[in-house]
């Protein structure tokens, strides 16, 4: 079993008496790509700030490689690379000057800081901008620069707050691939917060789903979703109208959109699969594909968030 790079035990953070993060427990094993997934206001960024020692927990305990990020901030920061949610605001500094400054702050001399800074800029696709002032960069380029800053010193733990937030589609794919490539190094642990589910799905192998300051579930994505099935499916067939009629006659809640058939509320997939081939073979209907309307992680996410919402509404009553 892997050791944990990050451990959060019963951590709460109250601001003006309001819980922003409430009794969060998380264990991030070493070498994993860990996603914090949740809607806006779920407490993801606050959790990230707690992890990086920017804010102090009101209660509970956080350990990063055994150290408290608030009390041992300097030692913890020598092990982590951090990408904040907001883009870099050193408007008058050039890209390379910024990289040299940050490199020097981790103890490199000017020559090494410049050399390593250039390598990292090339890695994130900013090599040609090294002499440009940061203020002249686009939002996406600033985001990449933030990412480059997080990579300085090759830290063991990367903590990335909404890494793809202000990137264009091509930039998103680039950064996602870059993050994915980090997983090849088993010693690296990456924590990513995002509200964009497909990106978390693509970048990470572990996830914690958060809502209203609490962790609803956490663990390996495959483990979490292995028993999760969507009740809504999309079918492609050679005879969509005929299939729709069959499904409606058999009391399935189905509808047609162009050449696709959508079925809602399949409660038993086993039953559905036992009936469908028979019905189709009678009418010579060929099923070309049947895919869930939603990703299993999305289904899990929506189920948990809705369940949480209902619980809250009941408690409010």
């Amino acid at each position, binding site marked *: 079993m892997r050791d944990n790079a990050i451990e959060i035990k019963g951590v709460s953070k109250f*601001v003006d008496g309001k819980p922003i993060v409430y009794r969060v427990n998380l264990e991030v094993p070493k070498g994993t790509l860990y996603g914090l997934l949740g809607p806006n206001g779920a407490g993801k960024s606050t959790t990230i*700030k707690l992890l*990086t*020692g*920017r*804010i*102090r927990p009101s209660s509970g305990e956080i350990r990063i490689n055994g150290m408290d990020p608030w009390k041992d*901030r*300097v*030692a913890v*920061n*020598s092990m*982590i*690379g*951090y990408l*904040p949610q*907001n883009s*870099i*605001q*050193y408007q*008058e*500094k050039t890209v390379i000057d910024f990289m040299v*400054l*940050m490199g*020097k*702050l*981790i*103890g490199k001399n000017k020559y090494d800081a410049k050399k390593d800074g250039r390598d990292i800029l090339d890695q994130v696709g900013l090599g040609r901008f090294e002499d440009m002032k940061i203020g002249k960069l686009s939002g996406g380029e600033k985001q990449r620069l933030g990412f480059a*800053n997080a990579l*300085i010193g090759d830290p063991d733990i990367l903590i990335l707050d909404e890494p793809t937030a202000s990137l264009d589609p091509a930039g998103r794919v680039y950064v996602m691939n870059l993050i994915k490539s980090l997983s090849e190094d088993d010693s690296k642990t990456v924590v990513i917060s995002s509200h964009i589910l497909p990106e978390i799905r693509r970048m990470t192998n572990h996830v914690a789903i958060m809502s209203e300051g609490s962790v609803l579930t956490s663990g390996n994505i495959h483990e979490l979703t292995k028993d999760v099935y969507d009740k809504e499916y999309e079918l492609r067939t050679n005879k969509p109208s005929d299939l729709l009629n069959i499904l409606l006659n058999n009391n399935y809640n189905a509808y047609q959109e162009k050449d696709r058939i959508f079925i809602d509320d399949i409660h038993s997939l086993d039953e559905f699969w036992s009936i469908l081939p028979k019905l189709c073979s009678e009418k010579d209907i060929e099923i070309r594909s049947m895919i869930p309307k939603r990703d299993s992680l999305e289904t899990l996410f929506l189920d948990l968030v809705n369940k949480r919402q209902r619980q809250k509404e009941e408690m409010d009553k």
Partner: protein
Amino acid sequence: MSNNLLDFKIPENYGKGILIIASDTFKSFLREKRFYISFAYYFVLPIFLLFLQSGELVVQTGTGIAIYYAQLNTANFVKGLFLTLFPGQIFLAILCSDQIASGIENDTLSLILSKPTYHSEIVLGKFFGLVSILAILQIPSMSFVYYYNLIRYDAEFPFAFYTSFDEVLVMFILILLLQSIIVALTLMISSIFDRSLYAILSSILSLFIISSISDNQTNLENGINYFNLGDYIDAILPTIFFNLNKLDPEPNIALLLFLILFLISLFLVFTNLILNRKELF
């Protein structure tokens, strides 16, 4: 973990960050418009002062008395330079007071703190960076003072040159130390606020309050108002350089330096404490 305070050790690699942040603060200021506006102000100010001065014309006779008057007028000149014209201090506040607050506002402080850097390194780095900037701002004024003596009193070159240079150098250090108190104070105020505008306004307000308190202080028994730095400047300069005890009373240079260093240390320690406990949301 040991509770023994004597076990306290300066962490390894401590101090490098001070130099890096000081140099960064200094270089960043050189790129800013407000630095050049301040530089122009400090350049023009002495010329205005020259016309405002009502000093008597002293004919150089080669005797001590003529030199004495010359130095005394220069001391008044420096006092005017630093204390009488309050806008200079406002410039200082505007230059320094948003250093930490703007870092909090635009998240640059967060970036620096995401590297293994101590809060105290940031505070000291910013402080020394700003003091270096102030040193540069003083150059036009000090150069002017230096030549002012030569031209105004028509002193013979070798003699007036050396005395004036000594005087100007120590005036430079003294004014820089006095301004460092303001830098440290504004850094402390800056660390309290998360918005640079509030920090600037509070710094200016506090300078007004301090100025008004120091002007209203009654003189102590020996005639020197120890809260009014202008009194020190008036009294000290001729005494320490020319051994002329013409001005009564004799000022206490050690006390002045102690006061300056004590105030600077106090403000910087508080800045560090505030920053240490500050949460960066």
